[in-house]
């Protein structure tokens, strides 16, 4: 038996369904891996070993009884801690929710369980998904499996690190401004932000309601598609959930593997999402990838999106505004921690204030203050109102671009994984790391990140971002699978096969060796 932890979910699916391997074995292998290396990686905030093995045993029993199960039944999955789980703490990386076990499952979690997947535990994240590095988690940062001194991206660094370090074949993430795609880029994994409304948000602890979207975090495009098929589709509990019938994303991904799938595909390169401020190795890999695409018959078209220049400014008004309101419910009255003021009378207002002061971290406070300000009477039109106008302009830029091309591409992030502490003192530098991913959230369109090589200067993964028109998620998977196959053929291996082997247990932060193989 090959080392099951290195297998894709699609491969595991085959082995599980013909019963060459049991779900208990697969689950145990991943739990062992977590046990061996997660002290160093710190991808998980909670590991539910017993429950996972019990769920795996139930799947094995059903298969043994001859029941025909879905393709991912028995495959383990890691769940970002932003999603409500009825049997595991759900803290969103915040101290204010320490130990809180929700009385319900998020819709995506229920769908994952109904499809027979095995939840392994909850993954680390920046507090309330505010950040690009997991450094803002109240429970300590996650380490990048490629280099423990570096960030795994954020906010969903835990999910990305879990899949890229082979602790789980699949994970769920959430993406408000890049929290699935940027971690995927810097860890060499695959992440997809679906079309807004394509996947239910019910039970996803809200950061910015009009931007949040739950999506898959995996090691291959096909795996992402298989997971997307499980979690996607209309949910009456989410009023912004689209009622469309969706095609199979897995079928779309498989279609992308056909010969000549890239021939004649019009690929738009967004001028504004490359160049100044982009690490040279990132730009280099991007240029090489475009050349490969052209050689495979794709038509490369330069497109301009002039209003992207204002995307970050608009995003950092809309997001804090919505977040300031979404986070108002954390008041100690019904759930979460309660902290009494040290002196003075115990009024509800003072207890709320003391709880929020103790329970929220600095970035959360910063954004609540920003958002409260942006929504205040007299400032609303200038800030929130203007930001919404920019949003419309960005949507028009996308419409104009997609009139000319089938997909848009850019680097997923301007840099490879940066070092811990590098951007903590400068929020703006941290915010700028999401320049590439934010436009898709503002427009509600789907976006994917997949690995396109290692940067020559630091040997760290670089991600390619692909964007498609709203509701055209299937196109992402077809094109993405084709690009993935093209790149892997050119390397003769997968990117993650070059990641450092992580030594069991003894590891502590900083002991992982950076890949010495250099760039591919």
């Amino acid at each position, binding site marked *: 038996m090959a080392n099951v932890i290195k297998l894709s979910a699609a491969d595991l699916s085959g082995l599980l369904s013909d019963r060459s391997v049991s779900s208990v074995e697969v689950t145990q292998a991943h739990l062992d891996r977590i046990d061996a290396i997660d002290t160093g990686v710190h991808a998980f905030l909670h590991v539910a070993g017993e429950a996972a093995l019990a769920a795996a045993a139930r799947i094995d029993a059903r298969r043994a009884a001859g029941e025909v199960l879905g393709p991912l039944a028995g495959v383990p999955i890691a769940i970002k801690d932003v999603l*409500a789980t009825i049997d595991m703490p759900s803290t969103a990386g915040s101290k204010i929710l320490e130990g809180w076990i929700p009385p319900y499952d998020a819709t995506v979690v229920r769908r994952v369980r109904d499809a027979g997947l095995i939840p392994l535990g909850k993954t680390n994240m920046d507090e309330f998904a505010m950040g690009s590095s997991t450094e803002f988690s109240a429970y300590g940062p996650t380490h990048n499996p490629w280099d423990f001194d570096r960030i795994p991206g954020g906010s969903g660094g835990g999910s990305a690190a879990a899949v890229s370090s082979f602790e789980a074949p699949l994970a769920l993430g959430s993406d408000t401004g890049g929290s699935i795609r940027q971690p995927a880029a810097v860890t060499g994994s695959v992440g997809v932000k679906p079309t807004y409304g394509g996947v239910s948000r019910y039970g996803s*602890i809200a950061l910015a*309601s009009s931007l949040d979207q739950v999506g898959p975090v995996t090691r291959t495009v096909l795996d992402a598609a298989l997971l997307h098929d499980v979690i996607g589709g209309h949910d009456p509990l989410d009023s*912004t959930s689209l009622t469309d019938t969706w095609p199979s994303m897995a079928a779309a991904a498989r279609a992308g593997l056909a010969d000549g799938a890239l021939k004649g595909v019009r690929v738009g390169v967004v001028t504004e999402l490359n160049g100044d401020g982009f690490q040279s190795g990132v730009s280099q890999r991007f240029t090489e990838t475009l050349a490969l695409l052209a050689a495979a018959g794709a038509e490369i078209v330069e497109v301009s999106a002039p209003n992207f220049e204002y995307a970050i400014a608009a995003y950092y008004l809309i997001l804090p505004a919505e977040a300031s309101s979404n986070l*108002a419910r954390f008041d100690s009255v019904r759930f979460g921690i309660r902290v009494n003021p040290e002196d003075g009378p115990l009024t509800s207002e003072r207890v709320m204030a003391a709880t929020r002061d103790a329970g929220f971290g600095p970035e959360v406070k910063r954004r609540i203050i920003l958002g409260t300000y942006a929504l205040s009477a007299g400032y609303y039109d200038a800030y929130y109102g203007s930001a919404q106008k920019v949003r419309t302009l960005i949507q028009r830029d996308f419409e104009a671009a997609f009139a000319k091309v089938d997909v848009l591409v850019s680097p997923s992030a301007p840099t490879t994984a940066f070092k811990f502490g590098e951007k903590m003192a400068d929020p703006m530098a941290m915010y700028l790391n999401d320049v590439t991913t934010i436009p898709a959230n503002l427009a509600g369109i789907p976006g994917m990140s997949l690995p396109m090589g290692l940067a020559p200067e630091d040997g760290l993964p670089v991600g390619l971002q692909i964007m498609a028109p709203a509701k055209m998620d299937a196109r992402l998977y077809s094109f993405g699978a084709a690009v993935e196959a093209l790149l892997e053929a050119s390397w003769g291996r997968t990117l993650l096969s070059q990641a450092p082997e992580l030594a069991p247990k003894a590891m502590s932060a900083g002991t992982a060796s950076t890949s010495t193989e250099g760039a591919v």
Partner: protein
Amino acid sequence: MKKAELMDYDKALELFEPVLGFEVHVELNTKTKMFCGCANEFGQGANTNTCPTCLGLPGGLPQVNAKAIESSIRLGLALGCEIAEHSRFARKNYFYPDTAKNFQTSQYDEPIAFNGQLTIELESGRLVTVDIERAHMEDDAGKLTHVGGATGRIQGADYSLVDYNRGGVPLVEIVTQMIEGGEADSPEIGRTYVAAIREIVKALGVSNARMEEGNVRCDANVSLRPRGSNVLGTRTETKNVNSLRSVERAVRYEIQRQAALLHAGGTITQETRHWHEDTGITSAGRPKSDADDYRYFPEPDLVPVAPSREWVEELRATLPEPPAARRKRLQADWGFADLEFQDVVNSDLLDAVEATIAAGAAPQAARKWWTGEVARLANVSGVSADSLVQPVQVAALIELVVAGTLTDRLARQVLEGVIGGEGTPIEVVESRGLAVVSDDGALIAAIDEALAAQPDVLAKIRDGKVQAAGAVIGAVMKAMRGQADAARVRELVLERAGAAE
């Protein structure tokens, strides 16, 4: 302010012109809450009708109740409003423990209904048209119970309990434009306006409309403008005035209080005020300024509500007869004098009387029973008369009286039996054996016995002093335990006295 310090009402009006405004909250009687599937009902254990959404748990999301939208549109149409083609929910942000999300999901600049009018008729016959600025949808807050203080208010309480069963119940808030020119009628305008809203929501069937249960709640805004000035005075907002009479009293009190303050050179603080039913005064609540910043913004978790014009017209066709027109029609049909009709209306018994008449009772008899004995019994047990007994039972009772089976006195006993759950009037008559004794044989035996026992009375009757018969009638009625028709007894007494000659 003590009552003695208030300015005389007439003098207040001489010096100032009252300007009014009302915000009436109507709780809709939908089966489920505004934004989730929890039951919308009273009397459950605390926090039992709750879910992640109405408890404001992390990850909870709202879903709009389509029936609530329908009710809101029908209410808007009944108030003569335009119905928005595109309407949105907005978040009203403020921290308070009864508000689970720490924002209320309400409507701001795009309400479902706007620009309406409601004409009300005062007792003098004066017609006043109240302009409706808007009617918008929102969710209700939970209910706080303050424990440990003397007053049940938050001040002095040891702790507070919160029940979120009411949290998320659908509300429509109806906001008037400024009402000017009310003059001395201002308090009555308040009462009549709220009564009219209550009647409309009841007729539409969109609310249980019980003010005592908070289904209809009124905030009354009052300000005074000095005569000769065109500058509006500072207003106060008296919150949650929960009976029609209180609306009238609270407006009157505020006019007198503000007049006294202003006349003494003082200023009015823009604030909310609490109405005290027991003492008939208002007291200061929290300061309220136009700069109160609720940081409204469009609710991103909900999509806009865009009712099609076809649907709106369909709903318009379902509107019942306007209550004012209905009252005119019913009074004419029934032939009630103004006072009689007012009595029925003021007792909130129009529906009950109408249903009783529809069940076959004569209008006057229906009126008499409802506003008389039923209302009296309801008053004793502190409930509303129409919740005590079904109109069809009252009609059946009246039928028994008309048929001579029951005297009024017996009928009252039967009514008590019906209310006590003993069955229909006929069943109560049978089980209690209350029917009038119409067997002359039994009566004659009793009369002969009574006459024999009072020979002096017999002699007087024979002398033509007919009024003396009263003593014998009384004795017979007593012997029959009241179950005899007194008129028939009288006839028979006179007959037997003659026969005994």
